[in-house]
């Protein structure tokens, strides 16, 4: 088991250093709109980082709170996509996405357990706003349903995986919990600067 873990770590490290090209659009990938949708939130830092923060925040909560966030994220992402198709000119969504860096980062840095109502509000608002901006990235030749499904699948999977990885870490006091909170501070710091750009 230990041997396999070592192999996995070494292989993962080596592969991460391999350069290559991944195209995030249906025209170039030829894998279809679902895959394009899946790649979009994960390959755009402005979506990937807040979704990471949302996962960390869910992981810092008791299991019931984490489950609540995890349930709301796909709903929010899909609702945001639908909203983008119906009303493609809600400029405030871009601002909400930028503020999501600061809000989610600070909440992670504080490392407190939040009431369910507040958790639900953050989960739905920020997943909706990011779903909306992902929806705007669709081109007329794409299938909205497939692209939206891809975005919701990848975004939710990312949040679930991060939350699942964070949950056991934060149960132990010490360095790892501090590392999770410090990463929240880093995300908020980045958000503070891009808000001015």
């Amino acid at each position, binding site marked *: 088991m230990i*041997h*396999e873990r070592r192999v996995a770590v070494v292989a993962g490290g080596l592969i991460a250093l391999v350069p290559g090209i991944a195209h*995030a*659009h249906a025209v170039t990938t030829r894998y279809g709109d679902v895959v394009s949708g899946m*790649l979009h939130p994960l390959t*755009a830092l402005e979506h990937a980082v807040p979704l990471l923060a949302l996962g960390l925040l869910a992981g810092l909560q008791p299991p019931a709170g984490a489950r609540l966030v995890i349930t709301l994220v796909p709903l929010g992402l899909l609702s945001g996509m639908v909203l983008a198709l119906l009303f493609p000119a809600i400029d405030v969504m871009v601002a909400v996405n930028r503020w999501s860096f600061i809000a989610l980062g600070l909440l992670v840095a504080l490392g407190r357990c939040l009431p369910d109502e507040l958790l639900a509000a953050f989960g739905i608002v920020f997943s909706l706003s990011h779903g909306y901006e992902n929806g705007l990235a669709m081109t007329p030749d794409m299938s909205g349903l497939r692209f939206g499904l891809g975005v919701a699948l990848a975004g939710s999977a990312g949040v679930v995986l991060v939350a699942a990885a964070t949950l056991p870490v934060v149960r132990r006091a010490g360095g790892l919990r501090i590392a999770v909170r410090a990463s929240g501070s880093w995300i908020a*710091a*980045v958000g*503070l600067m891009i808000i001015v*750009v």
Partner: protein
Amino acid sequence: MVCRVARAARSVTLVSLFVVLAPGLALAHQQTGVSGGLISGFLHPVLGPDHVIAMVAVGLWGAQLGRPAIWILPITFPFIMASGGMMGVAGIPLPSIEVGIALSAVVLGIMVAGSVRPPLWVAMAIVGAFAIFHGHAHGTELPNAADPLAYGIGFVIATGLLHMSGIVVGLAIARPLGIRAVQACGVLIVVLGGHFLVDAVGTAA
């Protein structure tokens, strides 16, 4: 023997799986400058020796101060630094930035060399005041980066890692010889910071 073969087969399967899942450079339309922005942001603090010694000093001092400073400093520093970065991005001028950065190395080096233990709020005020200078220097470059978001992520990560390096070295204080070694690092930081300070004052004059 059979066990070894089975283990090797599992390893090969695992590596193959990793290869199949190998990520590549993402070229979504608005993300073309990510790698450039990330690298330039990461290298900005790392290639500035005055930044490096000051950030490592923060980590060393945090380790000397122990709890709660050891975790409060790395959590709060990036946010305060980002406030300085925001001023830099917005074009709000800050006088004598290079002098402030060099001075931060000297002052923090003195704290480490002398194992100074002020109240937590004083330590926070000292580190926070200098963080603004460091953040401003990084932030000024941000709008010109290939990808400002990636640049910001790069320099925040680099700064955090420099703190962590300082904390890891600073944990040597658990041993008697380690206490002296960490203080010696403080003296070295004061000397280097002094050199940068003289240089910065000379340039400013």
